[in-house]
């Protein structure tokens, strides 16, 4: 497969800023990835809103969402841990709900909206949840952190003042190899303004 990232000329930083100008540039700039080189591989043009920016992108039907995000769009904040819907490192929000991006196809995101960890900060200002993760030393090795953030974000969007049990339930699908679960719960609770 051709390296799709090299032909994708919107930088990650520009993309994160998500201005209208970047949105237009992105629509114009994303080529039919790999299609010329591998004509026999089924591929589909989809339209998907990523971190608020509407994108047109040509994806191979077999691409998972996380392959589109990481390999197609250079959004490497989302991690691939187990690649089999068990660990939660790849969690993104699909129309506001947490899903495993390794276990959904990119083509299924057509017409829908994805939020990744890159969409949390506003410019250089971290989301309060990200700051709380830092303040509580929640990440240790950090590999699961992007997924933990997205599950916590989805919870707080719908339930700004959860109980500790609700936080644990919402983050059931995110495994932390360093086993720093208590700090993650404390961090989320601190943002909700409650005590664990």
């Amino acid at each position, binding site marked *: 497969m051709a390296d799709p990232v090299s032909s994708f000329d919107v930088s990650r930083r520009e993309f994160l800023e998500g201005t209208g100008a970047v949105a237009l540039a992105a629509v114009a700039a994303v080529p039919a990835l790999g299609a010329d080189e591998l004509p026999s591989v089924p591929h589909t043009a989809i339209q998907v809103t990523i971190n608020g920016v509407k994108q047109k992108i040509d994806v191979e*039907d077999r691409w*998972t969402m996380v392959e589109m995000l990481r390999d197609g769009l250079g959004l490497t904040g989302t991690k691939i841990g187990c690649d089999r819907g068990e660990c939660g490192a790849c969690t993104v929000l699909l129309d506001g709900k947490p*899903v495993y991006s390794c276990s*959904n196809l990119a083509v299924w995101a057509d017409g829908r909206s994805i939020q990744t960890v890159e969409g949390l900060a506003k410019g250089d200002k971290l989301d309060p949840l990200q700051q709380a993760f830092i303040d509580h030393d929640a990440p240790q090795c950090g590999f699961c952190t992007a997924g933990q953030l997205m599950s916590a974000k989805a919870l707080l969007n719908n339930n700004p003042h959860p109980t500790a049990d609700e936080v644990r*339930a919402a983050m059931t*699908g995110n495994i932390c190899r360093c086993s720093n679960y208590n700090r993650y719960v404390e961090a989320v609770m601190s943002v909700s303004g409650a005590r664990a």
Partner: protein
Amino acid sequence: MKTFSNVNARDAKQAVALSQQARKDGKTPAFTGGGSDLLGMVKERIITPDVLVHLRGMKGFDQIEQRGGGLEIGGQVTLDTISHHPLIRSRYAVLAEAAETVATPQIRNVGTLAGNVSQRPWCWYYRNGFPCFKAGGNTCFSIAGENQFHAIFGGGPSFIVHPSDTAPALVALNATFKIAGPGGDRTVAASDFFVLPKQNAAHENILKDDEFLASVHLPAPRPGTRSTYHKIMDREAWTHAVVSAAIVLEMDHDICRSARIVLGGVAPVPWHVPGAEKLLVGQKITPELIAKVAEVSIAGANPLAKNAYKVPLTRNTVKRTLTELTGLTG
């Protein structure tokens, strides 16, 4: 991942036609809803489809509607929706509770009712590429192998357990299933959808090529009906049932009018125990009666070398579930 093409079906008729066409073209089709399990099997090369027929966009199949006093649930309704739906929570609690125990929020947000009911077994031999009955072979490796999570009822020649949490709930609720296929729709009782390995060792249900579970109908609950689902796991979350119990009771004050007890995690199908139910009908439910019902619910258990612990666990799960459902203390 292996290459394949994805086609989004508009409706059931087109979905069936797409699957049939793929087969005519010499390709292997597979229906997909949420896809969580399917993609895992493709990655592991347990299945190797060439065409995915995607069902989630089919119009109307993600709806829950009141019909004939009962409830019609589209096969593409997600487990998350089912677990939160006010009518399901209030009238069919056993189903909402079962859906809520499945896997994780990420899976429940895309996982569908039809997919949960139709999923393949999670026996570690099948999932790790052993040529067992479920993979089209003629051996069950669990018999002489690691069988701590395998069947204690209804086993042979395969000893898988049915992995679905919603399936026992649907059988307990006397649901009917609508199956879409080449001949149009056909309807079967939920209990007739699942088949034992001695009837068909390779498949867990009656679905044939180019057929899929389209929707589920729940009959109106009789007055005084209460229900619950109790799931025992080897850790607190994110796994299948070691043993589960789906129980529906129709109560007239403290007299039981009818009872449905269906067990999960213990047999290759949702395991219905009519002998235990009969003891409850027309009776005032007491702790002594519950103990007797629990004992009868394990009649005929035939454990393998490493899963005999499931027998008392099943008995006690039935006892605890009935005790909680009737508000008695054990």
